[in-house]
């Protein structure tokens, strides 16, 4: 350009030269742009590819675990096997406590009956010509079937001497065998099921007695070691739910209050700078450190119980707080200063300005931060291992003070279960449930944000 203006005499030549140069340069710039775009698309494709492979693998492995071998058998409540006095009835003048004690005694006596014999008999009847050993027959179904029958009987003692058809869950090893998750050509001594049970399972599957049914119990049962086939996520789910309630109840008020104070009221000086730097640092602290802190402070010093969702929730609150504080502060900063000045100019106090005019505008931001923080906390495992939440818990916690596990910890526990053939798929199924919850939480965050932003 400078050439043309500097020497007007050679105008035509240099203009052509210029155009050629520009054209050349243009081609190069276009090429650069195309390369950059191409790289961007490749990066996204690679990222999506990894996600697709990850999800694909998990779904491929985990989806079959939602269907499990189930069979229906006729169960005869044999009065000769089930030794039971009639169920106690509350006598007149008997205190409720005495009655409960008597009922417990009766239940214990019922439990001590040989329920395995009842189960084995009903299995034998499915294939009368096979003359199965009791052990071989029992291997077919999960060991919790006997408690299912006991519970049916406790509920309704009139079943004694009757025959009812009961749906039973196949044992973990039966399920593994029928799904082909163990090499079917292996010799007897390397199989988990006996030859007789394998034959029985194959035959019943062929006859349609054993069918593949949706395993609702994954959502309704608690974890189980003695009957792995019936292991479910209910306990871990409720544990996670309690923790998230604790996190929301503690992290949101504390986080929002600190953010509002720091942003709107605090004087800008060394001290607040220091606090700000520390909050940002806190966001980068590895979660395991919070676990150690929780174990030392909440459990050893405050003597709060081990494995309790309350403690887990408090530890995760520490982890979630910086996220919420930082996000709330940035959404407060995004509110135009003219709004504050107008409110102050019309005579509103600082507090009124913040609470009537500024804070309502930041709701979408706070909400998003909260949900993302909670989703992060939901998937956190490391700190929970240090406060005893990696335990085998076979109860659904009734309160946040009861022992519980959490969903990610349950995945970790199933991953370590010694029955690999069965629990590999179960682990992936649990991951699917956890991912599903995360996706739902994130979708909720997006939905609420767009809705609230529209309303404003």
């Amino acid at each position, binding site marked *: 350009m400078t050439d043309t203006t500097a020497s007007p005499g050679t105008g035509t030549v240099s203009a052509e030269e210029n155009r050629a140069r520009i054209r050349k340069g243009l081609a190069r710039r276009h090429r650069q742009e195309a390369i950059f775009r191409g790289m961007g698309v490749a990066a996204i494709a690679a990222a999506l590819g990894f996600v697709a492979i990850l999800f694909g693998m998990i779904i491929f492995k985990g989806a079959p675990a939602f269907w499990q071998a189930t069979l229906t058998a006729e169960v005869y409540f044999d009065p000769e096997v089930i030794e039971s006095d009639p169920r106690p009835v509350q006598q007149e003048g008997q205190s409720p406590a005495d009655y409960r004690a008597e009922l417990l005694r009766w239940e214990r006596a019922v439990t001590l009956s040989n329920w395995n014999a009842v189960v084995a008999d009903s299995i034998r009847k499915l294939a009368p010509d096979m003359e199965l050993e009791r052990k071989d027959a029992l291997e077919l179904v999960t060991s919790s079937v006997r408690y299912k029958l006991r519970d049916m009987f406790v509920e309704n003692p009139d079943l004694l001497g009757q025959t009812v058809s009961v749906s039973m869950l196949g044992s973990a090893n039966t399920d593994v065998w029928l799904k082909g998750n163990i090499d079917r050509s292996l010799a007897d001594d*390397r199989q988990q099921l006996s030859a007789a049970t394998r034959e029985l399972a194959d035959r019943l599957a062929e006859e349609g007695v054993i069918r593949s049914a949706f395993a609702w119990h994954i959502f309704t049962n608690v974890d189980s070691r003695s009957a792995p086939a019936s292991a479910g996520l209910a306990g871990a789910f409720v544990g996670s739910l309690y923790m998230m309630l604790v996190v929301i109840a503690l992290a949101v008020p504390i986080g929002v209050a600190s953010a509002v104070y720091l942003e709107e009221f605090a004087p800008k000086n060394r001290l607040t700078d220091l606090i700000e730097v520390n909050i940002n640092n806190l966001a980068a602290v590895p979660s395991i450190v919070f676990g150690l802190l929780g174990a030392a402070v909440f459990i050893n010093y405050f003597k709060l119980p081990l494995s309790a969702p309350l403690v887990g929730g408090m530890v995760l609150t520490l982890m979630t707080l910086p996220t919420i504080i930082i996000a709330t502060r940035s959404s407060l900063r995004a509110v135009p200063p003219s709004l504050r000045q107008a409110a102050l100019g019309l005579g509103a106090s600082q507090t009124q300005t913040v609470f009537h005019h500024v804070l309502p505008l930041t709701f979408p931001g706070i909400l998003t931060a909260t949900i993302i923080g909670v989703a992060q906390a939901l998937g956190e495992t490391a700190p929970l291992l240090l406060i005893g939440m990696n*335990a085998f818990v076979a*109860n659904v916690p009734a309160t946040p003070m009861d022992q519980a596990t959490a969903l990610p910890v349950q995945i970790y526990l199933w991953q370590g279960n010694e029955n690999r*053939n069965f629990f590999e798929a179960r682990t992936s199924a649990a991951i699917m449930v956890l991912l599903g919850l995360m996706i739902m939480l994130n979708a909720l965050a997006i939905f609420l944000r767009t809705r609230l932003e529209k309303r404003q």
Partner: protein
Amino acid sequence: MKFASYASAAVLLVAGALVATGAQAQSRDTIQIAGSSTVLPFASIVAEEFGNAFPEYNTPVVGSGGSSGGLRQFCEGVGESTIDIANASRRIRASEIEACAEAGVKDIREIRIGYDGIVFAADASKADFALEPVHVYKAIAAEVPVDGEMVANPYTNWNEIDASLPDQAISLAIPASNHGTREVFEEKVVLPGCEEAGLPEMDEDAMEASCLTFRQDVVVEIAGDYTETLARLQSNADTIGVFGLSFYDQNRDTLKVATVSGVTPSLETVASGEYPVSRPLFFYVKGEHIGVIPGIEDYVAFFLSDAIAGNGGTLEDAGMIPAPDAEREAVMAAFDEGKAIMASDL
């Protein structure tokens, strides 16, 4: 604005309620157990059956953390935030009894529940191994005797140690020191092997230290549970892993077990004492918690009952080797008498 104040009021209420429940919760009514990952499957099964058989108690909660980790938690003191029972795949140490006593835990009841075998297993696709303790020692020691002198371990393949072993690179995955299995592995395999190898004259402590110094290049110490060892085997098929018999039993389709001193490990050979690498399994009960946390006595009695820990009981099906009836009865009697274990008993 109205929404905001209602919301914050509600949140504060919930927070207050949570703190209140925290302050109120005085009595834990669930037995809390932690410790050995070898005992964990057995203890979990018993806990579950216990919860089913005793409707008045909650199902005990069973955590892991290894024998040492469990006993450390156990010895943290007396009170509801400490565990009631520690599972261990080795006996408690005198130092641990002292640590317990210092923290106020003086009434430790020892319950021996049965036995477990420790097996060496390789990937199922690999050749058969017939190991002797001395082979294992020569494979993992940092220094081995060659012609009466200690030299840095020269062996890279098993057949260099003994011609009967397959031509396969040496690689071992052994439990880390937080596991009770490690102690048994050292005492029942490495030390006898070391003795057999015939180290040059030196004083006893130096000898033991030399025997138990492992090379770092081919030995991986696994701090996690047996699935981690299994994963090692899957990533490097040459690796030989150290497992509990019950874990091997559940994964026979992918693992091949090695014989030790010519004996194949099984429930029978461990029970009869033929298989050399076995160890008793324990749990330790905090006497101070008996009567405070409901159900501990019933749990112990239930655990040791014939139907659970006896011959043909639930735990034998799960892979534990039952103790003879007389031994279990003696353990139960000692527990009922309230006999606490002292450092002098060890």
